[in-house]
C-alpha cells in the first residue's frame, strides 16, 4: 500500500511536469546550465544556484525545486568531461574519475570513457532517486515525533557535525559556525521585536540575508581563488571526444555489480551531513580496486574506475543521499543542499516532515522533475560533449568578471538593495581568506540558515517547558540527540587518542 502511494505520487508528478511545456523547457535549461557549470573547473553547481535562485521568483515552487536539483545533478554529469579530457576535475566529485578517465583519453578512448561516465552517472543518480523516494516519506513519519527541543538540538548537531567532518580543525569549524550564528541574530529579534546588532543602520534591521552572503562566500570567493591561478588555457588534444561513446555507455551494464555497489556507497555517504561527493566517489573507487580481480589495471585506464566514481558521485548528490537529511530533518547534507534549502526558503517552503506529509504532491512533482532531468542530462552530455569541452577552455580573465557581474545581479535581485551587493562583496573577500586559513565557509552558511531555526525552536521549547531549561534534557529523543552530539564532537579525538595509545604500547 505504501509503495503504491509512492508510485501513484510519482506518476501524478510526472503528469504535472510532462504536461507543461514550460516545465520541460525550464528543466532542460537547468540541465544545460548545470552541465556547463559542472564542466568548467572552479565553477560548479553552487555558483549557478546562488546566482539563479533569486531569479526564480516567478516560478512555481515545485518547478523551482526541480530546477535547482536538475542543475545540481547535471553538474555531476558535466564534471566528467574535463576530468577525462584534461585531467582536471570539474568538481571535487569527479577527482577520482580523472585517475582512470584521463589515461583512457590518452589511449584515444576519450569518447568511451565519457560514455561510461555519463551512463554510470545516470544509473547511479536514478538508484539514488529511487531509494530516496521510497525512504524519505517513511522516515518523515518518525521525524513527526520531533518537537521544538529536538529541532533545536538537530540545528546544533547540523552545525557541529559539519564542523567535525569539514576540512581544517574542528575548533576553527566551530568558530566559523558560531560566527554564522551571530550573523543570523542580526536584525529584529524573533521574540521581542527589538533590533539586535544593527548599530543604528536601517539596512541592517532586516538582518544579513543569507543569499547575498552565500553569493559572496561561494561565487565571489571562488572567483578570487580562480584569480590566483592560471586556467582556461588547456587545449583539446587532437582527438575526437565523441568516438566510442555508445560503447562506453554499454560498458556500465557489463559491470552491474560495480555500478549498483558504487551507487549504494554514494547514497549512504551522501546522507551523512558534510561527507560530500568527493568522499563518496573516492571510497567507491577504492572499493572497486579492492574487489576487482585485476586491481593492477586501475590507474592505467580501467573503465570500471570511471564507472565506480561517477555512479557514487551522482548517487550521493542532489537527488540521492544528500536529499535525505535535507528533506526529512531540514539539515543540509552538503553545501549544495544548503543552497537547495536556501532556495526552498526563498520560495516559502519549510523543509522537514511537514513538507513531506502536507505538501506530498509538491515533493513527488519535484522528484518527477528530477527523473525527467536525469534523462535530459544523459542526452545532453552525450550530444554536447564537443561544445562543452570548448566551454572548459574559457580563459579565467573572461570568466571572472562575468561571474562577478552575475553575482552582484543575483544579490540585487533579492531585495533591490545596494546594501546586499556590498554584503556579497565583503563576504566574498571574507570567504576567500576563511577558506585559505581553514575556517569552513560551509559551517558559517549552515549556521546562518539554521540559526533562526535554532532560535525559534529554543524559545518555543523554553515556553512550552514553563520557562525552564529542563525540557532540553528530559525528553528521551532530546537525550538521544544530545548523546549523539557529544559522541560526534568528542568521538574523533577519543578515537585518535586511543589509536595513538595502542600504537605506543605496540
Amino acid at each position: 500500500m505504501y509503495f503504491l502511494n509512492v508510485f501513484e505520487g510519482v506518476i501524478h508528478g510526472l503528469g504535472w511536469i510532462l504536461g507543461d511545456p514550460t516545465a520541460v523547457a525550464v528543466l532542460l535549461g537547468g540541465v544545460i546550465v548545470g552541465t556547463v557549470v559542472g564542466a568548467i573547473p572552479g565553477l560548479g553547481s553552487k555558483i549557478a544556484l546562488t546566482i539563479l535562485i533569486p531569479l526564480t521568483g516567478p516560478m512555481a515552487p515545485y518547478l523551482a525545486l526541480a530546477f535547482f536539483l536538475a542543475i545540481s545533478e547535471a553538474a555531476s554529469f558535466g564534471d566528467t568531461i574535463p576530468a577525462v579530457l584534461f585531467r582536471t576535475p570539474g568538481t571535487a566529485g569527479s577527482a577520482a574519475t580523472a585517475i582512470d578517465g584521463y589515461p583512457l583519453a590518452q589511449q584515444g578512448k576519450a569518447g568511451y570513457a565519457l560514455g561510461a561516465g555519463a551512463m554510470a552517472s545516470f544509473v547511479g543518480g536514478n538508484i539514488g532517486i529511487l531509494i530516496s523516494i521510497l525512504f524519505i516519506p517513511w522516515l518523515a513519519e518518525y521525524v513527526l515525533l520531533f518537537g521544538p527541543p529536538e529541532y533545536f538540538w538537530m540545528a546544533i548537531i547540523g552545525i557541529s557535525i559539519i564542523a567535525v567532518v569539514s576540512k581544517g580543525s574542528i575548533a576553527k569549524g566551530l568558530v566559523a559556525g558560531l560566527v554564522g550564528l551571530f550573523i543570523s541574530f542580526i536584525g529584529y529579534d524573533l521574540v521581542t521585536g527589538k533590533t539586535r546588532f544593527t548599530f543604528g543602520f536601517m539596512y541592517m534591521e532586516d538582518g544579513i540575508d543569507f543569499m547575498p552572503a552565500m553569493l559572496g562566500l561561494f561565487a565571489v570567493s571562488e572567483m578570487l581563488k580562480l584569480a590566483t591561478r592560471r586556467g582556461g588555457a588547456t587545449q583539446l588534444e587532437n582527438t575526437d571526444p565523441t568516438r566510442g561513446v555508445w560503447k562506453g555507455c554499454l560498458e556500465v551494464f557489463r559491470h552491474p555489480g560495480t555500478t549498483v555497489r558504487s551507487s549504494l556507497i554514494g547514497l549512504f555517504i551522501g546522507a551523512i551531513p558534510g561527507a560530500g561527493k568527493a568522499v563518496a566517489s573516492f571510497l567507491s573507487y577504492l572499493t572497486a580496486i579492492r574487489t576487482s580481480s585485476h586491481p593492477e589495471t586501475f590507474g592505467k585506464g580501467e573503465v570500471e574506475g570511471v564507472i565506480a566514481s561517477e555512479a557514487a558521485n551522482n548517487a550521493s548528490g542532489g537527488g540521492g543521499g544528500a536529499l535525505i537529511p535535507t528533506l526529512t530533518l531540514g539539515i543540509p547534507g552538503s553545501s549544495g543542499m544548503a543552497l537547495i534549502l536556501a532556495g526552498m526558503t526563498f520560495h516559502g517552503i519549510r523543509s522537514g516532515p511537514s513538507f513531506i506529509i502536507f505538501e506530498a504532491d509538491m515533493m513527488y512533482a519535484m522528484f518527477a522533475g528530477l527523473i525527467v532531468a536525469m534523462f535530459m542530462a544523459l542526452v545532453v552530455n552525450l550530444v554536447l560533449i564537443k561544445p562543452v569541452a570548448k566551454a572548459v577552455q574559457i580563459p579565467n580573465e573572461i570568466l571572472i568578471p562575468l561571474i562577478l557581474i552575475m553575482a552582484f545581479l543575483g544579490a540585487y535581485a533579492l531585495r533591490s538593495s545596494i546594501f546586499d551587493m556590498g554584503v556579497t562583496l565583503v563576504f566574498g573577500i571574507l570567504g576567500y581568506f576563511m577558506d585559505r586559513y581553514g575556517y569552513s565557509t560551509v559551517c558559517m552558511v549552515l549556521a546562518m540558515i539554521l540559526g533562526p531555526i535554532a532560535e525559534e525552536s529554543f524559545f518555543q521549547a523554553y515556553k512550552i517547558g514553563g520557562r525552564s531549561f529542563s525540557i532540553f534534557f528530559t525528553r528521551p529523543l532530546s537525550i538521544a540527540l544530545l548523546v549523539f552530539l557529544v559522541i560526534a564532537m568528542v568521538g574523533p579525538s577519543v578515537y585518535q587518542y586511543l589509536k595513538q595509545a595502542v600504537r605506543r604500547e605496540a
Partner: protein
Amino acid sequence: MARATPARWGEIILLTVFGAFIATFLIDVRHLPMEGKILSYVLAPPMVIFLLICTAAVVLPRKKSAENDYLPTELGNGAVELGETPAKKAPAGPAALGLGRTIAMGFVLFGCIYLFGFYFGSGLMLLAWFALFRRFTVATTAITVATPLLLYVLFEQVMPVGLYEGYIVHLLQR
C-alpha cells in the same frame, strides 16, 4: 608571540575580524531585554573559548615547518585529497597580484553600479577589467558591448522588472 611572518598576517587579520564579531556580540547583548538574551548568553562562552583556542594557535610559538604555514583546503585544480593535504605556499607574485586586482575590481564594479547603474556600470567595469589585463580582442570587446545590452534586453524588455539606474541618474532626475 610567534614571529608574525607575512604568511601569518592573513590569519591574524582574520582572527581579529572574528574577535571583533564576538566582542560586538558580548557588548551589545547586555542591552537586550532578558527574553532575547538567553540564547545569546548560552552561546557566548563557547564562542569565547573557541576563539581563544584559535588565537593561541596563532600567537603561541610552534614548530616552523612547511605544513604549519597554511592550512590548505584544496589543490589548485579543484581536486580534494583525503586525509592529510600537502601545504601550499602563500599567494605571492602573480597569484597575489591576481588576487589584489580582482578584489580591487570587485570594488570598482560596486562603485560603477552604484554610480551609473547596472547596465552602464557593468560595461564600464568590463572595460576597466580588460584594460587592466590588456586583453582587448574581438571576443572581449564583444563581451564588453554585449553584456550591458543583454542585461538591458532581459530586464527591461523580456522581464520588465528593471534594475538599479544609478545614483547619478537619480541626481539628474531631481
